[in-house]
């Protein structure tokens, strides 16, 4: 093994570093028109009329399109709510523009298309929309009350669905427990905000009825299917190209209303149409995340063992979108009680619609809420019993010999060694030393706290009847000269898995990584795959790359054996050569073997099929969609996990705190490229810190979004993110041929819980309980004041 496990620098860097990379917003075909959207000012209103006469007089305006003109284009939904019908799941048709009534501030009402961006923006400002403003429903618990305004007129209320997850005998557990505690935790509404705003360029060729669509998307192939189905263009006449993408984090999973509108406009006008979102549009209409309340009761014994729990989750969905946001609270629900062996529980999830921007997928995707809830419970139990917080976790962990471990009707954890990971984190962090430092600081009136959290990061989502599954494809083509072209169905939003794929291919094909080129994100070049989400690139894509490489290598081996007059099983391969094990100087290059396949099909390559091209699909073997005899299924397929420890110091006068030390010991299975894995963790923790301490999407009581720029929705700068110490423990996945488990969402899951734990610990003298984020100075200060009053 030469490349896997090593710090190979990222292939895609040079164009990025030199400003030569092209993102979707950098693409402008000749004759391009520019789109701008008129967006709703109100959270809930019926549209009485739209007057475009003033706007149409702006020079350069080519089209003013209103929702009724898009009635033929209900957006094809890549994830169906139908399987959730037994739980009451409702449906809603979404059109590219508002039809009838608006359901959140920022929903697109009119699309302006003009010769320049300035003309489009000017015309948009002159469109007059006549609104009949309706009372908005902003709070999910208010939305459930009788008489609350209805977001969808044809529903019987605002409850989207009620989903249960039960295990064991919870009432018996509570009956025999020595202790019970109850409380609630709340995670605010926040979102990802990739630095590149979404950008779409549709280029429709009228003569050929062919659409080329450039998109800052995470799923080129599903997007192609969505466009073909929605626009009714044959799918073989649609090409989706994903150029460089400036971050995705789940929020570029298709389809968006603007994405479809831009494509339809190009078809209608017969010219290229381009739209690039502005930041306020991303904050207002680019998809939100989290916004969950969890009311819980927990039963435990004096030894710290948790016997049972009851949880009621209230999830504020906003309005509904075709994107998979409504799956986020489900992911929380089906993965409780995370890494802990709690054998009796009753969880009820209520997903409720309100007049807010719809939820979309965001890195973490509900796993951070599950983690936050369980970790707060662990700390509460430890405090109630006066026990150490590490010990409580060790006491309740699923033991290493329990795997595979079924934790819910929907979930079986693949493998794990939680005590080893936490023990290593305790060592790296120097836990005992920090306990002393904390005590000494307290004597001097300084408030240092230690945070502990253990994250479970379910990856490899596999949702029945959707485009969110765990299969993917890799095509490898070896040219006569031995150079290797790789085409993947997975895509990179910037994290560099093209490099990890090249590492796997180079090792398993036996070539130099310099001879490997990887293409991604073009539906005319790449095999049908599902792109980027749920840490799947190594799970599904890496596995497919491994299988394809091995198959081509074995074909080359046969020919090499004939050239060397040896037996195939006597050959070794490395550094671009096959050589005879016993006599290494007898060797033939892969290039010569490849040439023989192309040039000598009747002699040297007589016993192999001509050509050196292959497409392999890999499907994760451990998903289960046909329920077993107990009625159980398996939805997620891979379970990375990590221990977080940190130290903070709180200024009790201002409520501000500094992070003094941050340690993550991560287990994402086999590490393909440690540099990429560490970088993913750095970024994940940084986003987790953002959500934990500063980011919040705030709506007024009338449903107006108050946080629409990076000034009032600040994301962490280099001043807020601390240096991190990252270490690995490798418990391979039993189900991927590489042993990799995926790392795309690690770090973000545990960081909020770890910081909450640390702040609570720092303020333990005051008896402060931290049950809510974000931990802005104002909130921490208020917690101190309230605790002092008691």
């Amino acid at each position, binding site marked *: 093994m030469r490349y896997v496990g090593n710090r190979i*620098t*990222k292939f*895609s*860097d*040079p*164009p*990025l*570093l*030199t*400003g*030569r*990379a*092209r*993102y979707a*917003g*950098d693409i402008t075909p000749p004759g391009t028109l520019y789109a701008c959207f008129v967006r709703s000012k109100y959270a809930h209103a019926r549209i009485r009329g739209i007057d475009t006469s003033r706007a149409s007089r702006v*020079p350069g305006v080519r089209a003013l399109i209103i929702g009724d003109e898009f009635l033929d284009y209900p957006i094809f939904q890549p994830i169906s709510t139908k399987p959730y019908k037994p739980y009451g799941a409702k449906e809603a048709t979404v059109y590219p523009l508002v039809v009838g009534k608006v359901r959140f501030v920022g929903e697109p009402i009119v699309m302006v298309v003009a010769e320049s*961006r*300035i003309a489009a923006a000017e015309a948009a400002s002159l469109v007059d929309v006549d609104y009949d403003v309706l009372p908005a429903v902003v709070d999910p618990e208010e939305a459930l009350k009788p008489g609350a305004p209805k977001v969808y007129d044809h529903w019987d209320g605002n409850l989207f669905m009620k989903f249960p997850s039960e295990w064991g005998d919870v009432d018996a557990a509570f009956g025999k427990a020595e202790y019970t505690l109850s409380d609630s935790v709340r995670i605010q509404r926040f979102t*990802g*905000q*990739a*630095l*590149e*705003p979404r950008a779409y360029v549709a280029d429709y060729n009228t003569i050929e009825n062919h659409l080329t669509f450039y998109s800052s998307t995470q799923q080129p192939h599903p997007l192609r299917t969505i466009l073909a189905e929605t626009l009714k263009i044959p799918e073989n006449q649609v090409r989706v190209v994903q150029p*460089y*993408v*400036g*971050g995705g*984090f789940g929020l570029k999973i298709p389809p968006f209303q603007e994405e479809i509108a831009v494509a339809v406009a190009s078809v209608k006008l017969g010219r290229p149409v381009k739209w*690039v979102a*502005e*930041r306020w549009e991303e904050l207002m209409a680019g998809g939100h995340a989290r916004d969950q309340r969890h009311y819980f009761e927990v039963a435990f014994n004096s030894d710290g063992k948790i016997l049972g729990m009851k949880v009621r989750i209230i999830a504020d969905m906003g309005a509904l979108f075709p994107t998979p946001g409504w799956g986020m609270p489900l992911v929380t629900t089906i993965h409780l009680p995370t890494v802990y062996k709690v054998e009796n529980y009753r969880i009820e999830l209520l997903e409720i619609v309100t007049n807010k921007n719809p939820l979309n997928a965001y890195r973490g995707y509900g796993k951070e809420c599950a983690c936050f809830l369980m970790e707060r419970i662990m700390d509460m139990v430890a405090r109630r019993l006066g026990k150490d917080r590490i010990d409580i976790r060790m006491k309740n962990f699923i033991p290493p010999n329990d795997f595979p471990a079924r934790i819910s009707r929907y979930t079986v954890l693949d493998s794990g060694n939680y005590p080893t990971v936490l023990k290593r984190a305790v060592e790296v962090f120097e836990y005992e030393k920090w306990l002393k430092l904390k005590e000494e600081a307290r004597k001097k009136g300084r408030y240092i706290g230690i945070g502990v959290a253990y994250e479970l990061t379910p990856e490899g989502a596999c949702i029945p009847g959707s485009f969110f599954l765990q299969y993917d494809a890799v095509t490898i083509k070896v040219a006569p000269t031995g150079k290797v072209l790789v085409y993947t169905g997975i895509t990179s*939003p*910037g*994290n*560099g898995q093209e490099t990890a794929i090249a590492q796997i291919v180079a090792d398993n094909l036996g070539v130099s990584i310099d001879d490997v080129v990887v293409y991604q994100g073009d539906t005319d070049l790449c095999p049908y795959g599902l792109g980027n989400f749920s840490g799947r690139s190594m799970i599904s894509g890496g596995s497919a790359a491994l299988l394809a490489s091995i198959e081509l290598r074995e074909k080359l081996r046969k020919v090499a054996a004939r050239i060397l007059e040896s037996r195939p099983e006597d050959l070794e391969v490395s550094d671009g050569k096959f050589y005879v094990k016993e006599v290494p100087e007898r060797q033939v290059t892969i290039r010569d073997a490849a040439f023989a396949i192309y040039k000598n099909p009747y002699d040297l390559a007589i016993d192999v099929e001509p050509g050196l091209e292959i497409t392999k699909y890999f499907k994760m073997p451990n998903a289960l969609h046909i329920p077993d005899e107990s009625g159980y299924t398996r939805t997620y397929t891979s379970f990375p996990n990590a221990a977080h420890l940190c130290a903070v110091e709180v200024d009790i006068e201002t409520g501000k705190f500094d992070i003094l030390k941050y340690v993550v010991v991560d287990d994402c299975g086999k590490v393909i490229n440690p*540099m*990429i894995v*560490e*970088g993913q963790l*750095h*970024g*994940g*923790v*940084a*986003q987790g810190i953002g959500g934990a301490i500063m980011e919040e999407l705030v709506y007024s009581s009338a449903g107006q979004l108050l946080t629409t*720029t*990076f*000034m009032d929705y*600040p*994301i962490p*700068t*280099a*001043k807020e*993110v601390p*240096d*991190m110490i990252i270490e690995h423990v490798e418990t391979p996945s039993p189900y991927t041929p590489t042993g990799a488990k995926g790392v795309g969402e690690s770090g973000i899951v545990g960081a909020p819980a770890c910081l909450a734990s640390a702040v609570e610990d720092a303020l333990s003298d005051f008896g402060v309980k931290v049950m809510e984020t974000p931990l802005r100075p104002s909130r921490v200060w208020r917690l101190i004041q309230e605790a002092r009053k008691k």
Partner: protein
Amino acid sequence: MVNKVKVNLKLNGERFSAEIDPRMLLCDFIRDVAGLTGTHIGCMTGNCGACTVLMNGRTVKSCTILAAQANGSDITTIEGLSKGLELNPIQRAFHKRYAVQCGYCTPGMIITAHYLLSLGKTLSRQEIREHISGNLCRCTGYQNIIDAIEELLRDKGLLR
């Protein structure tokens, strides 16, 4: 119709002039008129720093000034810091350490790092953090970026 204005400036060492809408921002001028798309737009409110360029040797966020205000000035964009895909020492340091993920903030970050190194001042790690805090990165958590700049300063004997 809005009357056009003429802008003459030096762009990456070469004279460049164009007649433009006076409402045009410098970032749009660089991208749409000069066709240099390495300068990115992330927020339009001066927060994110993706559009950072050098104007007369100092960093500016090109979304915060009008193109007309740059008349007569000397502008350097990311494209002006290296030839083609060849990497300069700052870019190499970023590449070596995985200080680039999606790359959208990278041109602005490299321009800021270039400016920081051009100051010839001795800096601590904390001061590096403060200096780059006007450039937002959503992918890396900054650690590898700071490591890269630290290494460049150390090589020059400028790390405190």
